């Protein structure tokens, strides 16, 4: 086993935060740490990638400006062949999902996704991930595997910072024509509200049941001086616009108070709540994952609480 390989992620010419979190995790596992950056002009990223903990940056030139899963897969396979890393780390991101499991399947690597904690044991690496609506955690290991590819949960490690002085190596990899080709990026439509600027969010989830209930929460938010936000299922159902969605595929918010009614606390929802605000969760399920991150929790019916709040703020 020979060090850890981290795959940098970038979009529209910017490195994504998860890249630096992966570096921090790699440093924790133990070096040497190599970071691969695949881009049309990888030299644009080498300065930003020269952070503490990175021993080497491997630049690989690719034809497309943006991510293509066949390209990433072939380059990473070539790098694994060339370097023989013990560990390969990718972000558990939409891009990562497109090729990470394929690399592991092809090369017979140990593999786990959405890993949020790592520890080194005498007999190898132990990874923590969640199951069953995040109500249960599991420790998984990789007996008999010479190499392990892990997809790490964004936000689970504090990003590496501080200047480093890595060596820079250029590697050229011949790739076959991609079968899935990037055409263009399309931004989500601009919304009518900006939930990212709100100090107080009243956030409702699938627990509200039906579309007909929405007006009462709009009214309650108005009375309480809160901005209404939602979880994804309400947007999927067409009840609300994406501008109000909190989470990985919605908005990242930093309110002082986040009052969550009928939201289970899925990892992609929680990914959108940042900062050190106070989370208050109301849910009838005492084991709901949201209670694992809330400062205050109440196991009661959300409609009864909403009614009592409406009276208090009348």
């Amino acid at each position, binding site marked *: 086993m020979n060090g850890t390989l981290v795959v940098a992620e970038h*979009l529209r010419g910017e490195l994504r935060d998860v890249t630096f979190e992966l570096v921090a995790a790699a440093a924790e596992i133990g070096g040497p740490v190599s970071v691969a950056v695949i881009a049309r002009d990888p030299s644009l990223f080498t300065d930003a990638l020269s952070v503490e903990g990175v021993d080497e940056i491997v630049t690989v030139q690719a034809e497309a400006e943006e991510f293509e*899963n066949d390209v990433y897969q072939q380059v990473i396979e070539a790098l694994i062949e060339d370097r023989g890393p013990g560990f390969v780390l990718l972000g*558990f*991101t*939409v*891009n990562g*999902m*497109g*090729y*990470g*499991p*394929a690399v592991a*399947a092809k090369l017979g690597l140990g*593999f*786990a*996704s*959405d890993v949020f904690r790592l520890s080194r044991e005498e007999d190898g690496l132990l*990874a923590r991930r969640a*199951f069953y609506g995040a*109500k*249960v*955690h*599991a*420790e*998984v*290991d*990789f*007996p008999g595997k010479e190499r392990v590819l892990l997809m790490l949960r964004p936000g689970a490690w504090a990003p590496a910072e501080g200047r480093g002085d890595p060596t820079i190596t250029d590697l050229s990899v011949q790739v076959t024509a991609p079968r*899935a080709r*990037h*055409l263009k*990026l*399309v931004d989500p439509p601009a919304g009518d509200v900006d939930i990212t600027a709100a100090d107080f969010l009243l956030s409702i989830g699938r627990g509200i049941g039906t579309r007909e209930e929405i007006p009462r929460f709009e009214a309650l938010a108005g009375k309480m001086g809160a901005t209404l936000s939602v979880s994804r*299922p309400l*947007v*999927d159902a067409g009840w609300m616009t994406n501008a109000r969605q909190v989470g*990985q*595929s*919605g908005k990242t918010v930093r309110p002082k*108070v986040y*009052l969550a009614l009928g939201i289970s606390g899925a990892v992609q929802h929680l990914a959108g709540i940042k900062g050190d605000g106070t989370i*208050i969760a*109301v849910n009838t399920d005492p*084991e709901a994952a949201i*209670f*694992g991150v809330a*400062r*205050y*929790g*109440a*196991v*009661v*019916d959300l409609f*009864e*609480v909403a*009614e*009592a*709040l409406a009276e*208090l*703020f009348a």
Partner: protein
Amino acid sequence: MKIVVCVKHVAVLGDEIRFTTDERDVDEDYYDRTLNEWDACAAEEALRIRERLGGEGEVLVVTVGGPSADVALQRCLAMGADRAVRISFDQTVHDPIAIGHALSEAIVPEQPDLVLVGVQSSDSVQGSTGTALAQFLDLPRVAVVKKVEYDHATRRATCHRELEGGLVDVVEVDTPAVLAIQTGINEPRYPTFRAIKDAERKEISLVSAAGGAVSGYHVRRMFVPPKPEGAEMLDGGPADVARRIAEIVKERLA
């Protein structure tokens, strides 16, 4: 036109959680099961792609699971799928590499034009099985698809891949391909009572796969995570809870 849809009968835990004696999984008696939300969308999308092509062709649903998983297959048959295959596994596994491999063995002989999976299973949240399956089938794939336009003449599909923050990456893919379907792409139809009854009579073919040969990870133990320090549960009835919430809000916004 043949479309294969991979569906999982996912576990839904109640508020009491018990583990098996080896502590490596949750005791089956302590959960319910349902058709994975993402897979209902994948099944619906398969039916719609076929409808857009004039209704010609076959939609086949496949699952890896025990006899109880027939319920998930029947649901898809009631929605309008033509045929179902259950792959029985000699162990309960979550492992996306092992499941992807078992699925591939059943799918290879079918020679589908498209394979649809869900982005993730709600009980394992791995987002990985489809991409592992694509590798075992040696097919291109697109993960997290919110829109599909399939062109049977050119054998290509244009897909909207939903990235973080709702940004869309428009991708063109050669088919056959594996597409991982994201919720919101459609609203899965509710089968009629009649269709549900009819589906119960449709045959589900059974094949078996040997587990364990191909794997990604091994579960050492499962446990309920301790609640974080400093968290406080608000007691009392709704009125008491509301009063405390009002106090906290006032204090924090001051």
